[in-house]
């Protein structure tokens, strides 16, 4: 295989050959196994890279979903002593970090670092509630929180037990710079048993962080148990505090 062959293969695979040239190339492939093999390799690599490099939003969503189940692999009976020991180490490390941060004007805004992500649109079942939630998700994801709040309130008027709507209304208040109004919604979720329970604790903590009240912020972060999905995130923020 020489450079000229490589260029021919490239043109053959990209479909940049005149019919006559193509026919000639194909007849060469019939009698030259090395050329045939090279074309096959080339096609395999091109096809595979094409699939890998094309964005696949669905696959990215799946990876996020799988990542959120990782904790299943770390489940072990909670032991008190090692945790205490860990806390001591963490506390002394935190003292060092705090001292550094005290002098460090480069510290980025902590709230922004941990702020709310996106509102995941609910699965569509075609009900009125769903269409309200879809619209709310759209506004939320475009940072139009006032509009999102009013739609989510409508959902809650129809069904005050809708944890999904309540959770995102809390987050909308929070992002809309109304931390005090965010808390009743988020606390209600925390007191319930929905999947958003510990996420709510985290965002209540953030609501206090927003008001620069570090003590209640810490208290709420401590409510997040080791087996919660956001435990690591909470611990990271605790350290940064």
């Amino acid at each position, binding site marked *: 295989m020489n*450079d000229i062959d490589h260029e021919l293969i490239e043109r053959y695979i990209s479909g*940049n050959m005149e019919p006559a040239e193509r026919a000639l190339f194909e007849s060469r492939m019939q009698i030259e196994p090395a050329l045939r093999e090279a074309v096959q390799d080339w096609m*395999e690599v091109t096809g595979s890279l094409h699939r890998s490099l094309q964005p696949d939003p669905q*696959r990215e969503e799946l990876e996020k979903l*799988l990542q959120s189940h990782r904790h299943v692999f770390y489940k072990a009976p909670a032991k008190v002593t090692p945790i205490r020991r860990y806390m001591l180490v963490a506390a002394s490390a935190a003292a060092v970090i705090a001292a550094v941060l005290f002098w460090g004007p480069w510290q980025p805004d902590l709230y922004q670092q941990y702020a709310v992500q996106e509102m995941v649109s609910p699965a569509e079942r075609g009900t009125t509630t769903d269409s309200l939630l879809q619209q709310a998700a759209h506004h939320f994801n475009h940072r139009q929180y006032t509009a999102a709040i009013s739609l989510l309130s409508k959902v809650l008027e129809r069904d005050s037990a809708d944890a999904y709507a309540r959770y995102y209304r809390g987050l909308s208040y929070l992002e809309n710079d109304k931390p005090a109004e965010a808390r009743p919604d988020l606390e209600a979720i925390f007191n319930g048993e929905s999947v958003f329970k510990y996420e709510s604790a985290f965002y209540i903590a953030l609501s206090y962080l927003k008001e620069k009240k570090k003590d209640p912020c810490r208290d709420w972060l401590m409510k997040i148990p080791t087996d919660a999905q956001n435990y690591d995130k909470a611990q990271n923020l605790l350290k940064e505090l």
Partner: protein
Amino acid sequence: MPTQIIHADQRYVHALLHNDAIIVDEIYRRFAPRVKRYVCENNGTPDDAADIFQESLVDIYNQAKYKGLQLSCPFEAFLFMVCKRKWLNELKKKGRKGVTKDLDEQFNVGEDSFRDAEKTWADNEKARLFLAMLNQMGERCQEIIRLSMTDTSQEEIAGRLGVTYGYLRKKKSECMATLISAIKDNLSKWGLT
């Protein structure tokens, strides 16, 4: 390809394709413990097991989405075969001691299913090798190959890179030839043949 009877567990594959949180939760609850045990009893950690499990599920997703994978055996057996294949290869790559404990004798699957699982692993491992080799190439080659893999036309790519169409084609074929030769040199190191 012979027509196979699709196993009812195809629903799990369907769930991966459609991001079904409830069924994914079920997959972790039901099937993770066995994989964890297998990896941990064979020189691995829970972290390794979590990686292997997650990657295998994405491999199955890819195989179903792009290669039309259809299960002809229970999902658990299939997933376990992919995980096992992946872990054996990881051990080999890291030069760690081989597997001593085998847990899958209880899975009695047909040859077709075994071949499908092997292919699921191999196709995805190859894709990882191809990407890894691409990432090791010079900047210019990477740029040309990456752009060629999008739907951008050759003329547009040439314009964007500020080169002539003829030069682009020549350079692209050189880059591809180098990439393919690097891939071939590394196939056996990656446990692929």
